[in-house]
């Protein structure tokens, strides 16, 4: 009886340890999203630099000043932003799912939102919690 209980305690302690490790981000779905976003960044970075696109407070990107882009290229810009946001949404969802907790999606998104903004290059535009834009 006592051995059983001690065993249960030890098992419990082992379970605790697992929760403090890393999040699983090495799934094929997540790898594909990371690769797509990395490739897209080469096109979108110039728009961050110009201020045409900014980083939103909720972990996505948005057109901040379309005037920075010639009229003829605005359709392309919108498509670029839409594609980036689709991948970002999918990324947050996939990370939550890969870790067995789909309900974590919003918290994953909030974590990314903060880190994208923290790591934004100087000169890029980021959204404040009140939705106003600020330049890094």
């Amino acid at each position, binding site marked *: *009886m*006592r051995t059983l*209980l001690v065993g*249960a*305690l030890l098992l*419990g*302690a082992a*379970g*605790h340890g*697992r*929760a*403090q*490790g*890393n*999040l699983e*981000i090495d799934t094929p779905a*997540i790898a594909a999203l*990371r690769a797509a*976003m*990395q490739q897209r*960044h080469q096109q979108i*970075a110039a728009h961050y*630099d110009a201020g045409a696109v900014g980083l939103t407070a909720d972990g996505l990107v948005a057109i901040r000043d379309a005037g920075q882009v010639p009229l003829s290229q605005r359709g392309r810009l919108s498509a670029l932003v839409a594609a980036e946001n689709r991948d970002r949404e999918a*990324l947050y969802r996939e*990370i939550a799912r890969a870790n067995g*907790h789909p309900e*974590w999606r919003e*918290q*994953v998104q909030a*974590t*990314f939102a*903060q*880190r*994208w903004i*923290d*790591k*934004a*290059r*100087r*000169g890029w535009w980021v959204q404040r919690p009140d939705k106003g834009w600020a330049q*890094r």
Partner: protein
Amino acid sequence: MTPSVRTPSPAGVMTLLLGAMLVAVGCVTINIYFPAAAAEKAADRIIDGVWQLPNGQGGQAPADGDKQ
């Protein structure tokens, strides 16, 4: 010492049971609780890759960066 030491007292068993239950409940709580630090680490790894930042770069990003 009396031979009764061999069989744990009901109170002892209760304490152990209670402890085991507390640990079990604690585990469930912790596993459901969002691992914020791990999530931040994961976000950093992914963002560094997508933005091609040098590894382990913190908040201040490439200030006097190469591009511009």
